[in-house]
């Protein structure tokens, strides 16, 4: 049996669907364990992606990784899991390593593909400049799947939801406040990203970036100096020392394409670069390039997207 942990506090995220699809493709039946009180109706939709059983513990809110690790360990024991899958998101990064120690089970952190024929699993190393193939030496293995590495697949199927007591004890972490920007798309999960750098000259000029992002339904990102000077929030900083992302489309305006920046975005499927300097290194990593002024090109881009969207309805 393969076991998947998902966070269902805000319904089923794309990351949740990806992990269930991944676990199903590994072969064997898939059980899902979740905390929070998503409705049975919401959770049973996972049957469509290959889950056969869902264990739900509504007693814990999911804020303390030491509770979640107990929950997942208890579920793993109940279903006799040989593989446990997380999303390599902020919860997976906090919980999967704890579980690895608790179960003495090897962790493949940030898997980007299904196992190779020899059983090793590909991960990004050296900040996306290379791939490593990780072999697990223990009987039980834990895999955390980098978001946007595989597409969720509906295969049709049903599953049951069962109340489960993970005996997770009490939380040691007190939550004082939670801030989630309204309507913003979380960057690591975004399929489309519009990013800008120092070429935009000042925070007051980000309107053209946001307009394009809104027209596309994209998340926004930035280069390191832009976050360092405080033009944009830190969580938008992508690169080797920021967030690593791998969207389907990465649009970079006014970013030179330094090696440290590329390290965080080189997993993107398609890269569009807009830069006044035809010699900017980013063009070497781009699929499509526009040599031009971001202040002129971005608004035109936005209009072109709007025209395109109008024809799609």
């Amino acid at each position: 049996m393969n076991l998947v942990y998902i966070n269902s506090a805000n319904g089923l995220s794309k990351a949740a669907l990806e992990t269930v699809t991944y676990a199903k493709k590994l072969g064997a039946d898939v059980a899902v364990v979740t905390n929070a009180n998503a409705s049975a109706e919401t959770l049973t939709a996972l049957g469509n992606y290959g889950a056969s059983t869902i264990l739900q513990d509504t007693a814990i809110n999911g804020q303390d990784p030491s509770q979640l690790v107990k929950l997942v360990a208890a579920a793993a024991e109940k279903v006799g899991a040989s593989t446990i899958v997380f999303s390599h998101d902020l919860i997976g990064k906090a919980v999967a390593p704890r579980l690895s120690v608790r179960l003495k089970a090897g962790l493949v952190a940030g898997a980007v593909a299904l196992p190779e024929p020899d059983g090793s699993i590909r991960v990004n190393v050296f900040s996306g400049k290379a791939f490593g193939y990780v072999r697990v030496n223990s009987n039980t293995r834990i895999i955390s799947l980098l978001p946007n590495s595989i597409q969720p697949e509906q295969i049709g199927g049903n599953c049951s939801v069962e109340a489960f007591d993970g005996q997770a004890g009490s939380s040691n972490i007190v939550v004082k406040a939670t801030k989630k920007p309204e309507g913003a798309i979380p960057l690591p999960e975004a399929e489309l990203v519009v990013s800008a750098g120092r070429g935009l000259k000042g925070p007051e000029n980000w309107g053209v970036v946001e307009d394009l992002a809104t027209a596309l339904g994209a998340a926004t990102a930035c280069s390191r100096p832009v976050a360092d000077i405080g033009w944009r929030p830190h969580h938008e900083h992508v690169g080797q020392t920021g967030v690593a992302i791998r969207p389907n489309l990465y649009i970079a305006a006014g970013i030179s394409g330094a090696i440290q920046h590329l390290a965080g975005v080189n997993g993107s499927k398609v890269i569009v670069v807009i830069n006044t300097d035809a010699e900017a290194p980013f063009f070497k990593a781009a699929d499509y390039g526009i040599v031009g002024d971001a202040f002129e090109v971005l608004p035109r881009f936005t209009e072109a997207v709007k025209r395109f969207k109008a024809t799609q309805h």
Partner: protein
Amino acid sequence: MNILVCISKAPDTTSKIAFTNGNTQFDENGVQYIVNPYDEWYALVRALELKEAQGGNVTIITVGGAADDAVIRKALAIGADDAVRIDASATDAYFTAMQIAAYAEGKGFDLILTGKETIDYNGSQVGGMLAEALNLPYIAIATKLDVAGSTISCEREIVGGVQEVEVQAPAVVSCAKGMAEQRIPNMRGIMAARTKPLTVVAPVALDALTTYSSYSLPAAKSSVKLIDPNNLDELVALLHNEAKVI
């Protein structure tokens, strides 16, 4: 407050990444090692700020061979008080974390800090593993860190936002951007670092849980297709029909 900061070496960000021995080993030829930026810029500097404000001691620890002493001296030059090197090759995150846990157990550290990840293996694993091995609370990917008495308060990243949380010491925190600013060591720091205590400790016997069986490099990009800046409709059409991303 006694703070333990876990330090890893990492290849300089401009290093050429290549592999030897039939793609089974990282080619260290010509590679310069630095202190992993997350460990240095955020975990170590924040630990020093807390010590400067409240007193206490900052110990750095790494799992590595004698060649890593240079990286340790750099961290001492920035201001750590003393250093520990567990004399073993850091074969995987589990091995590394369990070695550090074996050392830290019972030493009375109030706070154990790691960087959010290393820029070579990018696993984000050591902090969580340490917390489990020492049975401590874990705050992953914190962007702010403050201490008042025995209360540790952090801002941490959550999916789609941030959260302010509190926990009682001792605890493990992994550190990310926002927490502190990079410090450049000065001459006095560099001189002082030479004589600060560096204790070399033998590793405990244990096996890694994972192995890197091989490595590969991504395929080179084909050359860029240039689009007329006055014809964005063409770009949108290509993104839809050719690239199929919108």
